[in-house]
């Protein structure tokens, strides 16, 4: 694959990196008009992206500000003789703070003065950068070594350059705040002063640089503000929607409200005659929801002209192959199935029937959660410019790397004809792992032969998501005469497009709680037919399974007459890895530690006034161990107030403490917002909710007090976009029970009559 080959690799010191890239990328004498992008996030700095005129449409970095005297030992760092330091952040920024966290790791090992560092979004070039996507809370874990090495290698070269200039041993020198210091004499040289010399040195191999010990960190673990904060609060262009290119037209795309429908006819002539409309046409699409479904494109001279025309558009849809999904039917079917055995048995371990037979108490319960939408605040959009068999794309995406493959497939061109620029995304939550909007923009630009910005309306965004699948769990479990959990059975009722496997993220993965912690466990499954697409939504699977499992576990603690904290710790058992040798698996010792910490910090066990209660829940996912305690009150009219949420987590060492706390606070709000009132319902394959009026994202008034505590263990650092979310819903539901005696088994809570 291609693209955006930064000229910084033309530096002789980084010849080994040049070798890994497409050699045809490196020569480009001209910068065409696309260079003059109005997007500050890209063109604001020294690296200006452009494409070659008259040649293959590949982007390269222009050499505008990058001189041979710059020190650029790898694709992450550029130090100029004037002392300026640019660190490139390789991953998509979707609100998880990676554009700050990744460069902090580089800067720590580089011993750069953070206040003087400028961060730039890296070009997309997986040959150089490796993984360039944001998903699964994997960015930190998968880049930790790479970024530390990048910083440490550059630091080592600067240190060597200084030692050579002074004629002293490198071991007599140290670094601090972008300066090399000779400890004996106190002589100092700023990194900028060493840039030219360092650039002439060989880049040390990974095994020949020494990484810092944790106790040596000065930057990592502190609270650092987001690098784009000033641009955000002053309204500068940053996001996908802010992209402008010369001669750009504005597009909208109308698809069948029921997935799979195609265009039978449309009033295209009438639409083409409207003010500001340049063209209106049907795209047949390729039938893939992840790429290009059939629809009508309208291309106009402004966003509003396109939106206004879309309101006049009348399409007759051929729905012979379209979805007819109905949430109300699904509820009725699942309710009828709840008392029956599952169609297939997925897991059968120990002797569940025996455990039930010898139980002191058994508990049965039926849990339900709905489909939900990602609803990032920036509706899907993408700017694309197809020209002469090649295409340049500007997209707010979580997966620029796979987006290129999908566009190539949609258009039937090679990936080396595609240049992609990643822009800040106004929220992701998993929605932007998909690149359907990118394929649509590409196809529309090719059809009209002009650059276009495709803009979805909020209604488009809500109607055409890859939803978190709803699901149903018919549970039965037992505690024995000593009050111990002794058996667990789940009949899981989920959805399937093909009748064979569950729809995306509508499955229960192997090793799901409590299977690895319990001798007697049975999981059966029944599939209901479903055609509407589903997909990963922040903490996929876990966001729903945690609610079911950790609420039901509390029911069992109650049945056993035991304190939930004590019961939960007993279920965890002795400290051990559940998958020995895999430090991304659940460690029951880490689990117990965060559970105890959350309990302690929340005042667990201390008396509360009538009508108030605390609820505890733990969940492990994305390599993160999190326990949360919610303190709520419930009045006789089911008015629910969440007063306080205590979060305790272990994801290893924290990179940016401010960003980490922000992610936890956000996960609590997101979890609360979703469990209280968010629900996507479908009838006749059509999503019934169309905008925030029917999909009420939580406002500020219901915000609880949130305390966040980390156990900064010595395990490798892992990600935080997701794992703080799942325990929130069960913690609140368990607190509702403690406060009111009401067991909430259906989400959203509005379905059970709760209001805030």
């Amino acid at each position, binding site marked *: 694959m291609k693209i955006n080959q930064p000229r910084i690799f033309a530096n002789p010191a980084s010849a080994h990196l040049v070798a890994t890239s497409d050699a045809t990328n490196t020569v480009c004498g001209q910068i065409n008009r696309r260079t003059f992008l*109005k997007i500050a996030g890209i063109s604001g700095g020294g690296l200006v992206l452009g494409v070659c005129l008259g040649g293959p449409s590949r982007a390269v970095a222009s050499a505008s500000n990058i001189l041979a005297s710059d020190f650029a030992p790898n694709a992450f760092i550029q130090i100029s003789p004037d002392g300026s330091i640019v660190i490139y952040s390789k991953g998509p920024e*979707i*609100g*998880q*703070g990676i554009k700050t966290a990744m460069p902090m790791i580089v800067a720590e090992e580089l011993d750069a003065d953070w206040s003087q560092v400028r961060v730039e979004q890296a070009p997309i070039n997986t040959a150089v950068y490796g993984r360039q996507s944001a998903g699964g809370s994997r960015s930190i874990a998968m880049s930790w070594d790479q970024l530390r090495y990048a910083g440490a290698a550059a630091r080592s070269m600067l240190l060597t350059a200084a030692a050579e200039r002074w004629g002293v041993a490198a071991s007599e020198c140290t670094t601090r705040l972008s300066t090399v210091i000779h400890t004996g004499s106190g002589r100092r040289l700023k990194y900028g002063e060493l840039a030219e010399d360092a650039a002439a040195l060989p880049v040390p191999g990974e095994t020949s640089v020494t990484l810092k010990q944790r106790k040596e960190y000065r930057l990592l673990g502190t*609270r650092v503000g*987001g690098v*784009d*904060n*000033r641009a*955000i*609060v*002053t*309204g*500068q*262009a*940053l*996001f996908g*929607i*802010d992209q*402008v290119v010369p001669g750009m037209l*504005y597009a909208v795309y109308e698809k069948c409200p029921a997935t799979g429908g195609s265009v039978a006819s449309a009033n295209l002539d009438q639409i083409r005659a409207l003010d500001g409309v340049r063209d209106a046409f049907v795209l047949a699409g390729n039938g893939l929801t992840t790429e290009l479904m059939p629809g009508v494109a309208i291309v106009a001279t*402004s*966003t*509003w002209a396109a*939106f206004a025309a879309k309101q006049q558009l009348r399409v007759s849809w051929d729905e012979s192959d379209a979805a007819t999904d109905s949430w109300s039917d699904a509820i009725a079917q699942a309710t009828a199935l709840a008392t029956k055995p599952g169609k297939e048995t997925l897991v059968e371990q120990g002797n569940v029937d025996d455990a039930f037979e010898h139980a002191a108490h058994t508990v049965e319960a039926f849990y339900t959660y709905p489909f939900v939408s990602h*609803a*990032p*605040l*920036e*509706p899907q959009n993408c700017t694309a410019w197809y020209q002469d068999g090649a295409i340049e794309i500007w997209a707010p995406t979580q997966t620029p790397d796979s987006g290129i493959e999908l566009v190539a497939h949609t258009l039937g061109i090679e990936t080396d004809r595609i240049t992609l620029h990643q822009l*800040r*995304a*106004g*929220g*992701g939550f998993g929605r932007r792992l998909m690149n359907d909007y990118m394929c649509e923009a590409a196809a529309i630009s090719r059809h009209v032969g002009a650059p276009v910005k495709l*803009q979805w*309306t*909020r209604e488009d965004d809500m109607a055409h998501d890859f939803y978190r699948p709803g699901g149903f769990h018919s549970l039965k479990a037992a505690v024995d005469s000593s009050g111990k959990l002794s058996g667990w059975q789940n009949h899981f009722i989920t959805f399937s497009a093909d009748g064979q496997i569950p729809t995306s993220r509508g499955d229960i993965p192997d090793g799901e709680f409590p299977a690895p912690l319990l001798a007697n466990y049975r999981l059966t499954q029944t599939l209901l037919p479903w055609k509407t697409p589903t997909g990963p939504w922040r903490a996929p699977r876990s966001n729903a399974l945690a609610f079911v499992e950790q609420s039901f576990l509390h029911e069992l603690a109650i049945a056993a007459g035991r304190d939930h904290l004590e019961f939960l710790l007993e279920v965890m058992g002795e400290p051990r890895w559940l998958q020995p040798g895999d430090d991304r698996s659940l460690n029951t010792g880490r689990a117990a530690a965060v559970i105890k910490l959350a309990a302690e910090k929340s005042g667990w066990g201390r008396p509360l006034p009538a009508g108030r209660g605390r609820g505890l829940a733990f969940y492990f996912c994305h390599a993160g161990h999190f326990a949360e305690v919610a303190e709520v009150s419930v009045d006789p009219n089911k008015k629910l107030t969440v007063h306080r949420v205590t979060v305790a987590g272990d994801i290893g060492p924290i990179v940016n403490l*401010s*960003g980490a706390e*922000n*992610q936890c*606070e*956000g*996960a*609590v*709000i*997101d979890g609360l*917002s979703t469990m209280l009132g968010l629900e996507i319902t479908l009838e006749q394959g059509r999503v019934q909710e169309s*905008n*925030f*009026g029917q999909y009420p*994202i*939580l*406002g*500020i*008034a219901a*915000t609880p007090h*949130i305390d966040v505590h980390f156990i900064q263990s010595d395990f490798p650092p892992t990600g935080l976009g997701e794992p703080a979310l799942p325990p929130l819903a069960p913690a609140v539901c368990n607190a509702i029970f403690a406060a009111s005696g009401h067991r909430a088994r259906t989400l959203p809570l509005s379905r059970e009559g709760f209001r805030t």
Partner: protein
Amino acid sequence: MLNLTVNGIAHSIDVDASTPLLWVLRDDLGLVGTKFGCGKSFCGACTVHLNGKPVRSCSVPARSGVGQAITTIEGLASKNGTLHPLQEAWIEHDVPQCGYCQAGQIMSAAALLERNPVPSDADIDDAMQDNLCRCGTYVRIRKAIHSAAAKIANKGDQV
């Protein structure tokens, strides 16, 4: 031609006057700090000031801005570049996650402080409830508003 004064600068724009102010700001004037979130006044991402009062620019026809002082996030800082105390507080408290809603949040908060320089939590709830933040930065938004209010009050005391 539509005549609008935005952030103190007069513009003459060739656009249908019924176009929502949001799209004139974004597409015609290139003031992209004001964001499109819902198009129906539900989310507040498009909040700007008309004569100091917060309005949802997605639902206000551009013609209603004629003869009014329109202020967008780009015009909130003083002419010499000094940030508004709210913008400073937003940075100090590291409020943003994705950042998409924050221009609208700040514009609503600025209008709140204009009419109520020392808002209580309940005042903040009332004024800010319909500015949605999908990332859930409300804890920090509240802190930043209190912090900016205190800063403004201290400056007033010194004068």
